[in-house]
């Protein structure tokens, strides 16, 4: 590989890298932003607290009064699921 080949490879690499780095942000910026949620059964949701007393009202994903960032539908403050994350 001579010097001109190296320079050509570098230019081509820079172009590819720039396109790669720009493609995802562009895709992220241009696609609509819907919040996806899981079915209650996907995360083993139930309307009662865990055995150790942990419940949705103390979960980081809980949205008062009866919502959740990741579980779809009506969510009880006294419920619990396997995605529980301490607030």
């Amino acid at each position, binding site marked *: 590989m001579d010097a001109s080949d190296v320079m050509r490879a570098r230019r081509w690499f820079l172009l590819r890298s720039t396109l790669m780095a720009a493609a995802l942000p562009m895709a992220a910026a241009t696609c609509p932003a819907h919040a996806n949620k*899981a079915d209650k*059964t996907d995360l083993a949701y139930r309307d009662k607290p865990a055995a150790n007393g942990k419940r949705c009202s103390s979960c980081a994903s809980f949205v008062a009064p009866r919502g959740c960032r990741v579980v779809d539908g009506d969510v009880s403050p006294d419920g619990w699921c396997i995605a529980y994350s301490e607030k």
Partner: protein
Amino acid sequence: MNISSSRIYAAGRLLIFLLCGLTVLEAQAVPSFRRQTGLECTACHLSWPELTAVGRNFKLNGYTLGDKQALPIAGMVIGSYTKTNSFSGNSNDNFPRDNEVVLQQASVFLSGKISEHFGVFSQWTYDGVAHHSAIDNTEFRYANSVGSGNDKIVFGATLHNNPTLQDVWNTTPAFRFPFTSTPVGVTPVDSALIDGGLAQQVAGGGAYVWWHKTVYAELSAYRNATHLFRWFGEGTDTSQPALDGVSPYWRLAVSQDWDDGKQSAMIGTYGAKFDKFVYPIDPANPSDRIRDTAVDAQYQYITDEHRVSFQGGLIREHRDYRASFAAGGVSNATQKFDELNLKATYYYDRKYGINLGYFSNRGDSDQTLYNTGDPITGSASGSPNSSGWIAELNWLPFRDIRFGLQYTWYNKFNGARNNYDGAGRNASDNNTLYVFGWFMF
């Protein structure tokens, strides 16, 4: 290209990637899967990267759960120290950074939800030992579903650059224990092709269905990361493409969760057929025919306080070395190779973990392939048989930081317990102490 210019070139690659990410990072803060979902790491991981039922659900649904982040960027750094048991009077050419603290790797991730049904996991890694940066595991995934509750059918498509990267159980090679290992120790002379032999060398596309949260089925196909897919191997040497044509891959698994999601189990099978080029290419016999067939199983018990998991997998590789044999690269035209991996994990309070793994590689002897005459890496008996244990202790003072102490014992290395290389080296000489700090941010 001389060494210094190649280092500058490698550093430039990483710098470009970091700058592209950090430029927007300043404006948009740091998003990641955790930021996207609002969940703790330990909701999706028994202990990262091992997936829980929540993590598997997240991946099967295309990394789309939660709120889309403007820029899903994250980072990872692993620093480590390795001490090989003995050099037995040999030079340390095979152990260039042994007994040193090294920056093992630094990675940047662009990983997250792109649209309602489309997500990405992508990684760019700087190898601190080889001083080289390149694309790492990368996957684009589309997912959708019909039905609801236990009758839901999730279906999707995947495009990725490492066979089994797309799998959601930690029994397949891409995300199997050990999750990190020494970058400087010697390793057994052979492994199955599907076990990392094509990583970042290929582009794979496929479709999958996740039926009633019970049955997972997938069909994929691989081709070389060239032409349109060249970027899937960016930074790696793809000047000699690995695959001859298109290679099929299949996966079938049956899984069940019970006890309010605390317990889960899976039993499955997967396999692939690869036609692999041998260089220089002989038009009469351009490629070897490699067929991998595997069975695997996993069990997990997960609570906040106690977390237990078991994984096992056996890969049987049938090798039709017609091209290698014609080229004089092997002694036997057909061979078998088996790779067994078992692992048990226990975590207390999600902070303190102990892992024990067993591995065994067994294959047909081949004097040309394995008896290279090289000390340390060769096999005097011409056998690839190697087996041993890996024990690892983990401590996670914070959810994103792991310190680990790993020790690898070899019962057998390249065919023998004692004097395996014919130069007096024993399998136990390759036992390795590996200490690491693993930081995610």
